[in-house]
């Protein structure tokens, strides 16, 4: 049904629906928590008719809002990262976490943390360097050998992850400060350390999103193969380099803020592709909005499911994402 409408109309429709979903997720994320679950109180606090000095207002604005914003930014970035990697590598199972890109930036970030770098720009740069290194290794692995199948790429990523994990454990084992607990929690993907002061860094994501959206059409052409895209007028090497750089940059930026949150880049692009088809001119905005809603809701589960305290949101996303990964792997094998 959606296919018969003009692209502009479809784009507007998808954006409106998913923006609505995001608004609802924001309200839920800000309204639900251990200290008071009132949506009506929340609406009062949000629209300024309540008492701005009340405890609930302060919790909503100073604690929950930064966390929800961070969740939204991380969710958008990771799902967009997954979308871009899947198109560039023409592999439906590619994702920053699975390829080891997130792991690489975690190694960099922890290294930076232990060296006493400030969260920004020191840690972010270290994380960027780490993820870039892994990216080069993974891409070098496949580009040197054209007969290398998609499974080799995934295996390469799994090994990168194992290697990064070992380095991280090594770094932790030689650390004897109180930071260890914090690092461990962060590793599992954690949004609880957010504060309003850490949010401006995330503005750097916006130009990255814009670049990916501007390259949505060339990404479409790339899906049919590199040579096919080149024969339709795309400078494939330049496009690939630019997108890999932008994606790695934004992924390492959010890994610094949130730690390792896996499978978001797998779940969201797949669900949206199923609903909207493979056109990136729709999928890019849809992944940004949908990924944001998804991680806000996952974080809500992580905050509210345990009887006391909370669990890292990475556990929730892995519990949802890993089974889906296995289903997709099984399906792609059956197709071959």
């Amino acid at each position, binding site marked *: 049904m959606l296919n018969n409408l003009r692209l502009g109309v479809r784009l507007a429709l998808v954006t409106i629906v998913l923006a609505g979903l995001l608004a609802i997720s924001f309200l839920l994320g800000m309204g639900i928590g251990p200290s008071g679950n009132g949506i009506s109180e929340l609406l009062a606090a949000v629209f300024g008719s309540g008492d701005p000095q009340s405890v609930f207002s302060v919790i909503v604005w100073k604690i929950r809002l930064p966390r929800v914003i961070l969740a939204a930014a991380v969710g958008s970035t990771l799902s967009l990262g997954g979308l871009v990697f899947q198109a560039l590598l023409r592999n439906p199972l590619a994702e920053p976490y699975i390829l080891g890109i997130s792991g690489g930036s975690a190694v960099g970030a922890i290294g930076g943390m232990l060296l006493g770098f400030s969260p920004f720009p020191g840690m972010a740069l270290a994380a960027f360097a780490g993820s870039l290194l892994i990216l080069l290794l993974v891409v070098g692995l496949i580009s040197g050998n054209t007969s290398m199948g998609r499974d080799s790429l995934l295996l390469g990523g799994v090994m990168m992850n194992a290697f990064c994990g070992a380095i991280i454990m090594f770094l932790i084992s030689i650390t004897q400060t109180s930071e260890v607990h914090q690092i461990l929690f962060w590793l599992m993907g954690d949004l609880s350390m957010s504060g309003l002061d850490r949010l401006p860094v995330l503005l750097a994501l916006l130009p990255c999103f814009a670049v990916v959206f501007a390259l949505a059409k060339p990404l479409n052409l790339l899906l049919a193969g590199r040579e096919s895209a080149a024969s339709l007028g795309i400078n494939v090497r330049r496009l690939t380099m630019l997108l890999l750089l932008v994606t790695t940059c934004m992924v390492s930026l959010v890994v610094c803020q949130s730690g390792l949150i896996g499978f978001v880049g797998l779940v969201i692009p797949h669900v949206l*592709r199923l609903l909207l088809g493979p*056109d990136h001119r729709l999928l890019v905005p849809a992944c940004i909005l949908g990924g944001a809603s998804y991680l806000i809701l996952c974080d809500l589960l992580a905050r509210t499911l345990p009887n006391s305290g909370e669990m890292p949101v990475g556990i929730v996303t892995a519990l949802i994402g890993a089974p889906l990964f296995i289903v997709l792997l099984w399906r792609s094998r059956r197709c071959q």
Partner: protein
Amino acid sequence: MQVISVEGLTLCYGKRQVLQDISMQVHRGEFYLIIGPNGSGKTSLLKGLANLLPVAHGRIEILGKALTSYTRRQLARKLAVVPQQISLDFPFSVAETVLMGRAPHLGLMGIEGAADHALAREAMHFTDVAHLADRPLDQLSGGERQRVIIARALCQQPEIILLDEPTASLDPAHQIQIMDLMERFRVEKGTTVIMVSHDLNLASLYGDRLLLLHNGRVEMVGSPDEVLTAERLGACYGCAMLVEKNSLGQMPRVTPIPQKYSQVV
């Protein structure tokens, strides 16, 4: 007039040299076939012409301008490529795939207008895939998919179209269908058609001129009558060949001779 002119072309895959000192001229509106045994460099030559492989030595001119002076977009407006197959991991619909042929004529976001949709419809009618417009590409048969990729190339409105073995893995009826389509394309639009083919008989039936490659070098260029002789083919392919005239139009008909009949000839 020459649309393609190649002088002393050498191409390498990594360190391995696959083509050596190739020279060829293709005239406007010609049906030009590149033939030769496996590994003789046919596909590499096609990729070289489309600027998909770097030129090690020599010079390629497309429409009177050096190939290297074109940007990819400029080249894509003049020259379309029909690859042997395209990736189907993320299948678009037939209509979307054909519309992608408009990409080199559109802006960065590639928003297609009414004229582009009309061209895509025309291309789909031309190659007889209009009834499949909303089907995803991975649900089509090999012949249908090939016609969709040809429609995409048609939609590109090129002056030259390069095809890499478009009839491989198709049954005889579909082979003829694709070849007739390209012949009609050539006659009606005046497009120059350059095709790599394994099928010597199809090459004989349709080719204005054939280029026979052997071990990365040009063995001979000429009409089917000139190129398809038993001695030459036997030497290139390493297999005895029977060449007769077919009763349709007196074109050469090539039959590789099985061992059990080798005494008969």
